[in-house]
C-alpha cells in the first residue's frame, strides 16, 4: 500500500515562528510537491522537487522555502509564519513523466497561525 505521510494533521503556531512541515513517501518517487489548499482557490503549487536537492518554485513561493536532502523526504519551511499562511497544506509525490502517472497525496496539515 503506497503511502505519503505528513508530520502533523493539525498545527497551531504564533506569528513570527519558524514552521517546519515534513512529508515522507515510501514509493521511491522522483517528484514531490507542496500545495496550499484554500476554499474556492483549489490547490496552488508552492514548490516542487524533481530530484534530491533540486527544487522549482511554483505559483506562490513567497514566504516559503523547501528542503529535499533525501529522496523520500520533502520539507516545507515557513521562515516567519504570518496569519495569511493559515491554510491546509498538502504534500504529494509522483513518478516521473510517462505512462499512468498520477500524484499520490498525504493527509494534509491544517496550519493555524495566530
Amino acid at each position, binding site marked *: 500500500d503506497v503511502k505519503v505521510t505528513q508530520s502533523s494533521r493539525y498545527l497551531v503556531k504564533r506569528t513570527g515562528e519558524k514552521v517546519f512541515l515534513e512529508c515522507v513517501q515510501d514509493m521511491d518517487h522522483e*517528484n514531490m*510537491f507542496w500545495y496550499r489548499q484554500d476554499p*474556492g*482557490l*483549489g*490547490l496552488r*503549487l508552492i514548490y*516542487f522537487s*524533481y530530484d534530491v536537492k533540486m527544487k522549482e518554485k511554483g505559483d506562490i513561493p513567497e514566504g516559503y522555502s523547501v528542503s529535499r536532502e533525501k529522496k523520500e523526504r520533502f520539507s516545507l519551511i515557513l521562515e516567519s509564519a504570518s496569519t495569511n499562511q493559515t491554510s491546509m497544506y*498538502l504534500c*504529494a509525490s*509522483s513518478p*516521473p*513523466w510517462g505512462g*499512468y*502517472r*498520477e*500524484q*499520490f*497525496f*498525504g*493527509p*494534509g496539515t491544517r496550519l493555524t497561525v495566530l
Partner: protein
Amino acid sequence: AQTVTQSQPEMSVQEAETVTLSCTYDTSESDYYLFWYKQPPSRQMILVIRQEAYKQQNATENRFSVNFQKAAKSFSLKISDSQLGDAAMYFCAYRRRNQFYFGTGTSLTVIP
C-alpha cells in the same frame, strides 16, 4: 500556463441518481494526462479515474466514467448510482510532464 476550469462550485444529487461534473482545460499540447480526484471531508485526496489524451476511448471505473472531448478540451466525470459515500470535493487535474494543474473543485452533496 495551463488552466483547468471547473465551473460548478457545488452540485447535489439524489442517492441512486446520476450526476455529471464538468471540467475544461486549456492546452496547446497533444500528449498529456487528465485525472479526477476525490477529497472526502477531512480525508485524504484519492484518485478516482485517469485518462490519457492519446486514447479516444473514455475511461471507466465501476460507477465512474468520463466524457473526454479532446477537441473541445473537455473532461467531465459521470457518477452513476450515486451513493452517500460519494459526497466529497472533486478536483479535475491535468498533467503535462512533471507539472500538474488543478481546477478549483466541485463540492458534491448526495441527498438521501
